[in-house]
């Protein structure tokens, strides 16, 4: 899992991400986010990277690698 930025124009991407949810209710946003996660997870593909992310999010304090 990368700790340095890997996206060009991070500010631009960040605001596109927020724009994606414009006008959506929280429930709708929940589904859009879920779709995005599934799409990105499939794009990453590598289970060890995905598992590393899940493990970090489940227990951030235990992770000292960063």
């Amino acid at each position, binding site marked *: 899992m990368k700790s340095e930025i890997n996206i060009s124009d991070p500010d631009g991407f960040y605001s596109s991400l927020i724009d994606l949810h414009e006008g959506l209710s929280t429930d709708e946003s*929940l589904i859009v986010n*879920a*779709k995005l*996660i599934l799409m990105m997870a*499939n794009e990453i593909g590598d289970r060890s990277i995905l598992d590393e992310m899940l493990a970090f999010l489940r227990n951030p304090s235990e992770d000292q690698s960063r």
Partner: protein
Amino acid sequence: MSAKYGELGQARGAGRSLQAVYPFVEPPDLQTGETRHCPVVIAGGGPIGLATAIDLDRHGIPSIVLEKHDSVSDGSRAICWSKRTLEILDRLGTGQRMLNKGVTWNVGKVYHGDRPDPIYTFDLLADKAQKFPAFINLQQYYAEEYLIESLAGHPAVDLRWHSEVVAVETSPERVTVTVTTPAGDYQLTCDYLIAADGHRSPVRHMLDLDFEGRVFEDNFLIADVKMKADFPAERRFWFDPVFNPGKTALLHKQADDVWRIDFQLGWDIDREAELDQKTVDARVRALIGGDIEFDYEWISLYTFQCRRMKNFVHGRIIFAGDSAHLVSPFGARGANGGLQDVDNLVWKLALVLEGKAPPDLLDSYDQERVYGADENILNSSRSTDFMTPKSDISTAFRDAALELAKDFAFARMFVNSGRLSVPCTLDQSVLNEPDTEDFSAKQRPGSPCLDAPIMLNGSESWFLNQLGDCFTGVLFSDATGSITDEMRALEDWDIPVRAVIVKPDNGSPSGGAIIDSQAYLHSHYDARPGTYYLIRPDQHVAARWRAFDRTKVERALSRATGHST
């Protein structure tokens, strides 16, 4: 007599009126007052108990089956029988009959919302050219009736109706079983008691043992409906259909124009109201349309559990089938899992009873089938979690996967309407001789043997029919090869290893050689001339080598029979 699990549902309409009822026959034990000893007593005459008794007889072990009711299963239970189950039942003698009567299917379709086209279609028969299809659908009572009828050819099986096991007592040497019948109580003793007494398992309770695992808070209405409809025989599953908004539904064809309809209801329901005829009528009508005439065979309400006992072997009492493990039905892993228990257990029990293997061999039943049960529970739990999301976020992921599925192939792989029963590959079993040579993983030690069409003595036949009941040594040779004297000698061992030879299409069929006429075997088994497989009595691979070596076979056989690890 009341229904077996009467509180779950009831027969309705003309449905099935001619369910066989079997008479109580007063056993000699009651008159003589003597306590008879039988090597094996089986508590429960459901599919698992019956199959166990038949398989034991194939190994020359007599048994007494005690069944508290006087008939076979009611409606609305198992309908989907897997390829592996049919292969096991073929060995036991009823597979072909099941196939002839059942509705064959390989394809499942998943629908979402009001879209008329499926979002996802799956074909469960990965390897074609098999004797049996991925699945047939057949009412459970037929499966049981066929087993019961086949007992005519198994006089050593003593099936006793109206005979309820009410107490068990164990000592290091034997089990004593107390039986209640309409004509009074009596006792039997046995070396081993097989508890095949279903999910409530009175025997489990008598031993103060428990189930571990999860109970799902959801209710399903199951209606078995008799109608002439031209819906396809495929398994059709809906998420959020217009006729059951926000919930799931399933439609699946059975024999005799009976259709299984399954509606998810949710957890907070009024059971009585849901079983009201008008309510059920309305649900069924909404699915099948307005003009088809139909009648009910059975209606019931179910909640589901995915649980198992911690261990299946408790000294001389061994649990198999629903008494040992329970799953939600969406993977059709209940009876299909239970029959793999039988397949796994009986040859081991026979060797132990004959004194040819140590009782420790039975620990491998525990290990292998707990592993199999966990696989079934894992798959069934995941399906149930997808269908019945436990939180808003898991609902969101479910809906996201369903919506993405119409545009992206990858998302279809997340859609889970039940991962249907596949035979368990017994990876990590202590009985396996690990590979030391270069082989493809497909038929690795622990895996169930894959079938293939063959030619035998000039006629078409199937590979799996050449395996089973005892150990088999399969030599793959070139066109001119033959079974060596050393291989032949294994047939006379204490635990015999039947010698079998497989030759390519241009090989000579003399001496009962198996001709791999369509080359499937060579490909499935990654075989080259000289390759030798040691196959267990339950048609699982024990070991394989690129060349036959007597010492290695001896070692693998002793490992596979619990003598050494």
